[in-house]
């Protein structure tokens, strides 16, 4: 073990981990594939906790005037369910794919900033733990994932729940920003020779657009959260209505972030589907350029529609008309994508397996969510739908039937690449059908009860409202979804260890990740590929060009080395975050730790010159 003494103003001597093993390997790793797996597993566990929260909510609503869960706990549950699914579930599950797949798809040996990547994971993990620890530290946040002021101020919410939400989201924001900065630079600067932008696989494109949306959207929510934190901790007046504050400020800042966030959630899933459908149809994607342009247009328009979440707040007819029109316009590029996916399957030779089932499930569910979205883009009729179960139905069709179906499809699709083993196809199909049937029976009736006047976020309803039957159906079906996910977990656990060997290219894939062994070697590519076309690997296979023997030896490849610092910086942030909640001195210590560890990090080389 070589030690690198760091002569710093503050004298730290820490040896750098060299070829660590066991748990230290995972803690100090800078390998994008390991970080991807960590991201995926952690996010999936969080997804399960969010699912449990959802089941508790549904149980309370199974019938009218039920008293299973206390109102305060119910409010905490729906707040945590949404916060978990969005920030701890779908976003990091997408990030898991970014981490694992992007360098493989663009022919890179790693990301541009491997340690920043590790930092992103640890910050995400600690942020998630901060958020979830609130359940054991006096109660979770209870003001909804949207946290509309002024109910989040100390005047109306004196407990610590909201504090956990405020600092937790900021820490998670740092994680997302770090990852996104990294992927923007990686996609710009780490592409293999010949991999021009218009030869990028669509998943990489969607990641790129998502990351740009994210680095522009997260600063806005960060400012809003800082303002709320200053209000709660130092008695500032941002949302203090008795000092004349306008609570709509929060709503605007929140949705300026919040609407791009919606596309941050769905674009990666669209990217995954755009990989799966061509692969299994044995056809190129239909209208590649249009797919890219449509996504770019969606991302751009995502900034100009935020007030459609606020049609009922009295913005006035001009604003409502403008935002109605801009919102409707988003249907156009979304439609283009939908038609192009159908065009991709047209004339193909489509394999009927779990990834395509989830992809086609994505198309059909996302279509329903998209159409109900157009329905409430019309502010005139949205006055009746805003804050009802109709909206709940819409967003679950988009996020569950959309994003989650896409992500599950992606997990099945890349499972053989990541583990080197094949999943159980029968169980995969069972998983799909349970989730598909469960999803539709849970969320479709919400359209009905929404139009029948059932508001969101209510812990009880009267028997004479006529909502009881469908609520009962929904609760039952929510458990069907849970069983689907259970079969998914069994399938994954079983196949990861004992599945049949998958081989390097089980799907006859089109993109570069299928050209290397499964699981990929630590250096990804022995020789950095030379890319000559879109779907280069497929084109080369058609031409009969198979693997060429490489002269490069693995030991000559310099790889990013392990480091303690990313994890320690994240730990410092976490200490600072708890400090904000409990004790400002602790917060100061945490910030000091961040400063010191950031300095140590920046003085540590990416690679030791003498180490291999």
């Amino acid at each position, binding site marked *: 073990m070589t030690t690198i003494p760091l*002569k710093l103003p503050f004298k730290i001597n820490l040896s750098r981990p060299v070829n660590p093993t066991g748990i230290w390997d995972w803690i100090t790793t800078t390998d994008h594939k390991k970080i991807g797996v960590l991201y995926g597993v952690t996010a999936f566990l969080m997804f399960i906790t969010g699912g449990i929260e959802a089941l508790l909510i549904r149980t309370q609503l199974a019938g009218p005037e039920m008293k299973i869960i206390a109102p305060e706990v119910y409010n905490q549950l729906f707040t945590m369910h949404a916060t978990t699914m969005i920030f701890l579930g779908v976003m990091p599950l997408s990030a898991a794919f970014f981490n694992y797949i992007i360098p493989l798809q663009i022919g890179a040996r790693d990301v541009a900033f491997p340690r920043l990547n590790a930092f992103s994971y640890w910050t995400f993990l600690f942020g998630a733990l901060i958020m979830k620890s609130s359940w054991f530290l006096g109660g979770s946040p209870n003001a909804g994932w949207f946290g509309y002021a002024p109910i989040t101020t100390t005047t109306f919410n004196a407990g610590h729940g909201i504090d956990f939400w405020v600092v937790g989201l900021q820490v998670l924001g740092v994680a997302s920003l770090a990852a996104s900065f990294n992927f*923007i630079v990686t996609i*710009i600067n780490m592409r293999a020779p010949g991999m021009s932008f218009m030869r990028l696989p669509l998943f990489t494109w969607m990641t790129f657009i998502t990351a*740009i949306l994210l*680095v*522009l959207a997260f600063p*806005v929510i960060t400012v809003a959260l800082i303002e709320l934190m200053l209000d709660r901790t130092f008695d500032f007046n941002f949302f203090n209505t008795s000092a004349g504050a*306008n609570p709509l400020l929060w709503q*605007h800042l929140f949705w*300026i972030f919040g609407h791009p966030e919606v596309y941050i959630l769905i674009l990666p899933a669209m990217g995954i589907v755009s990989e799966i459908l061509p692969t299994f149809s044995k056809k190129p994607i239909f209208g590649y350029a249009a797919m890219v342009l449509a996504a770019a247009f969606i991302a751009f328009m995502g*900034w*100009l529609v935020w*007030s459609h979440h606020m049609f009922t707040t009295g*913005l006035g007819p001009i*604003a409502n008309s403008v935002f109605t029109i801009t919102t409707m316009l988003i249907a156009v590029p979304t439609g283009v994508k939908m038609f192009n996916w159908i065009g991709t399957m047209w004339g193909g030779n489509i394999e009927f397996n779990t990834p395509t089932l989830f992809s086609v499930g994505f198309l059909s569910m996302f279509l329903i969510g998209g159409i109900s979205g157009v329905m409430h883009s019309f502010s005139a009729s949205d006055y009746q739908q805003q804050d009802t179960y109709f909206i709940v139905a819409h967003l679950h069709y988009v996020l569950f039937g959309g994003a989650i179906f896409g992500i599950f499809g992606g997990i099945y699709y890349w499972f053989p690449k990541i583990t080197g083993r094949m999943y159980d196809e029968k169980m995969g199909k069972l998983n799909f059908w349970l989730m598909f049937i469960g999803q539709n029976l849970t969320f479709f009736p919400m359209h009905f009860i929404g139009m029948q006047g059932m508001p969101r976020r209510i812990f009880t309803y009267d028997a004479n409202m006529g909502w009881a039957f469908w609520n009962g159906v929904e609760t039952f079906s929510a458990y069907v979804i849970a069983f689907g996910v259970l079969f998914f977990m069994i399938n994954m656990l079983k196949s990861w260890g004992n599945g049949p060997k998958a081989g390097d290219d089980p799907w006859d894939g089109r993109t570069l990740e299928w050209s290397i062994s499964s699981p990929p070697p630590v250096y990804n590519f022995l020789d950095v590929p030379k890319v000559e076309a879109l779907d280069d690997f497929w084109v080369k296979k058609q031409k009969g060009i198979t693997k060429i023997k490489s002269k490069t030896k693995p030991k000559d490849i310099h790889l990013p080395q392990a480091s303690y610092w990313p994890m320690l910086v994240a730990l410092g942030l976490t200490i600072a975050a708890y400090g904000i909640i409990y004790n400002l001195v602790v917060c100061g210590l945490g910030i000091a730790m961040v400063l010191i560890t950031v300095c140590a990090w920046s*003085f*540590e*080389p*990416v*690679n030791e*010159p003498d180490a291999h």
Partner: protein
Amino acid sequence: MVTDQKNKINKSDIHEHNHPSVITYFKVAMALILLTALEIVVFYFDWLRYGIIPVMAVLSIGKFAIVVMYYMHLKFDSKLFTYLFMAGLILAMVVILCLMALFGWFK
């Protein structure tokens, strides 16, 4: 202290032959001072009334632009940097203007 890795800089990163000379930097500084002085002078022209807004906007944007172009080398560097920065900058301005419109600033 600063590492080997960091020392390995692509040739394309060293643009000193493109970069302006110290004299140019000094001229830019003089322009900045001039514009700031103008701002402060204009500030005392009460008769401008709302007219001060465009005047001040032009002066500030001018200062902003020459710092970004010369001191931050955007004029000489890869266009990619300009695109990346302008994406954030333009969006930031659009968002501020939208917010001002929504809160009745232009009524």
